[in-house]
């Protein structure tokens, strides 16, 4: 088992014939992902990578039964592409783009209400269930199968944590990047809830960063609702206030936005916290030993 995507997921690529989509679709197929086609408006009826290309997501869904979409559409048109995916009945849409205008995301979040779709991103490396399904741009070879769920705002810090864990023999069920933007499709709580419900996930790692109330809200939710141990880290201990640290959402606007305040809150709520980004792997291992959770 896993969360959001697995070996049965049928994936299409929006913006399929573009350079990045082509490269990452090939990599996803190599890993075993069921890629069933793609969408590029104006190129419907052609084939790409031996797969059918459609003009609209609705046509692609009707013809292939796709339920997951990797949205590789440039930022100015990305929110529209996400709405199209939701409208066509896609269940999980992953949007990689960095640079979607925030007002577009505010509109999208309104549009989604009452519709049953998960939006992962934007500004994310995507989601991967090792050996089954990859929808994104992460280096798939570093993800080994295991019993740990990872959710992070940053992409590269997700890789970092994954490598530290792999070095200790620890693998993952699913890794989810929720992205570095201030308004994002999926928050930490949604992913924690999915991990809590997934029988194969036994431990959850949450990697946050400065800015916004998400990490603490998730830590509170976890205290009330999770039986599985949660290990947290928040990047940006050394970040100055008022500066946007690369990610649109990574900015300290007030005291509760700081990395230390968030990690203090997580610790007070009884969760495991790696205070040093180099110690994420060993903190996970310690939590597993203390909770008698086997390495799988």
């Amino acid at each position, binding site marked *: 088992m896993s969360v959001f995507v697995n070996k049965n997921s049928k994936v299409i690529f929006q913006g399929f014939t573009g350079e*990045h989509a082509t490269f990452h679709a090939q990599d996803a197929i190599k890993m075993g992902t069921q890629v069933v086609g793609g969408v590029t408006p104006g190129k419907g009826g052609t084939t790409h990578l031996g797969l059918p290309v459609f003009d609209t997501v609705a046509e692609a869904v009707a013809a292939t039964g796709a339920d997951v979409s990797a949205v590789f559409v440039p*930022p*100015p048109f990305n929110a529209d592409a996400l709405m199209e995916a939701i409208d066509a009945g896609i269940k999980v849409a992953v949007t990689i783009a960095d*640079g*979607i*205008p*925030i*007002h*577009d*995301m*505010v*509109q999208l*979040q*309104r549009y989604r209400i009452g519709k049953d779709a998960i939006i992962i991103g934007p500004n994310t490396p995507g989601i991967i269930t090792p050996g089954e399904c990859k929808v994104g*741009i*992460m*280096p798939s070879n*570093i993800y080994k199968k295991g019993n740990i769920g990872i959710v*992070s*705002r*940053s*992409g*590269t*810090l*997700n*890789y*970092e944590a994954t*490598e*530290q864990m792999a*070095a200790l023999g620890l693998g993952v069920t699913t890794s989810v990047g929720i992205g*570095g933007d*201030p*308004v994002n499709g999926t928050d930490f709580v949604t992913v924690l809830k999915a991990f809590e419900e997934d029988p194969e996930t036994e431990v959850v790692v949450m990697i946050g*960063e*400065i*800015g*916004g*109330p*998400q990490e603490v*809200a998730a830590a509170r939710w976890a205290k009330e609702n999770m039986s599985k141990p949660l290990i947290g880290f928040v*990047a*940006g*201990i*050394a*970040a100055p206030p*008022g*500066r946007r*640290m*690369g*990610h*649109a*959402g*990574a900015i300290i606007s*007030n005291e509760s936005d700081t*990395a230390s305040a968030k990690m203090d809150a997580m610790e007070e709520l009884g969760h495991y916290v790696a*205070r*040093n*980004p*180099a*110690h994420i792997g060993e903190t996970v291992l310690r939590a597993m030993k203390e909770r008698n959770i086997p390495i799988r």
Partner: protein
Amino acid sequence: MNIHEYQAKELLSTFGVPVPAGSVAFNSTQARQAAEELGGNRWVVKAQIHAGGRGKAGGVKVVATLDEVQKAADAMIGSKLVTHQTGPEGSIVQRVWVEQASQIKKEFYLGFVIDRGTQRITLIASSEGGMDIEEVANKTPELIITEVVDPAIGLRDFQCRKVATAIGLKGKLMSQSVKLMKAIYRAMRDTDALQAEINPLAVVGSEGEERLMVLDAKFNFDDNALYRQKQITEMRDLAEEDPKEVEASGHGLNYIALDGNIGCIVNGAGLAMASLDAITLHGGKPANFLDVGGGASPEKVTNACRIVLEDPNVKCILVNIFAGINRCDWIAKGLIQACESLNIKVPLIVRLAGTNVEEGRKILAESGLSFITAENLDAAASKAVAIVKG
């Protein structure tokens, strides 16, 4: 992207929001002329820099003669203004705004932000205008009124009336405030602003003639939406930005200067922040934040090294790359190219991981250059700190 107060007032005025009559001046003669043309017998001369806290720092003067207007402008233009938001290095005043002074009866606070919790535009208002709103929020949270806007429906009249009542705007002022709040909301939406702050919103005018007036305004815009905001983009004042950060962004790099001595070149914002954290936890001080982003070509890596080395405090550079869409072999080639073309004298500590890591390490090892390699983040940070501590 930020703009000056006078630009924000001009922008608001095009949306029908009442602002004092005024004019921008780049020298004291212009300032005097502006005051003369505006007429009246009291003026405010306001230094135009992007940082807040100008009043306390001497950047706002109320004067009663044209000579005083000229004197105030003369003192401000070209001077360095240090406020709690500029940092100790301050900001050089290039222009002033001269406006007719208003008879202030009462001051309010009005702000629109994109609230990260609700993911919607939220109106924040307070009867405590003219003060630092965060201080008000900390000391008297009950005086902060918030109203969330449904993006599909927009800000409604009843919501504005609710806010007006809560902060004590009655009668004619209430109906004025409804129009004003809706106009500011529209301005924010139409210009892709992240934040619109009016502080203070003042009640001005004589008995029976009271009206609302925006006395100070601050706007902050979404950089990601500037492609569709030509008019806003034209308001950008590069003199208010760090020239190195501007140069870096021209090369697709995200650079922020800090005050330490360990230069950093990292891919990805999260790993870049974590690298600064690891250095700090080892007792070192990072000189900068630098995210080279995805697809870092050798040219991009060379530019990154050059920008980091322009800081004379830099004693060594920590390069930390976890390649996803990047490739370690390209990074390695870029580093060698940088070492050769820039004649780099400081030690380079290099940690490579991810896509094509073996090729990357091999290229570095065979280069004959003395890179200090590190297997992981912890080792990289500890080696960098050990070098600067000697």
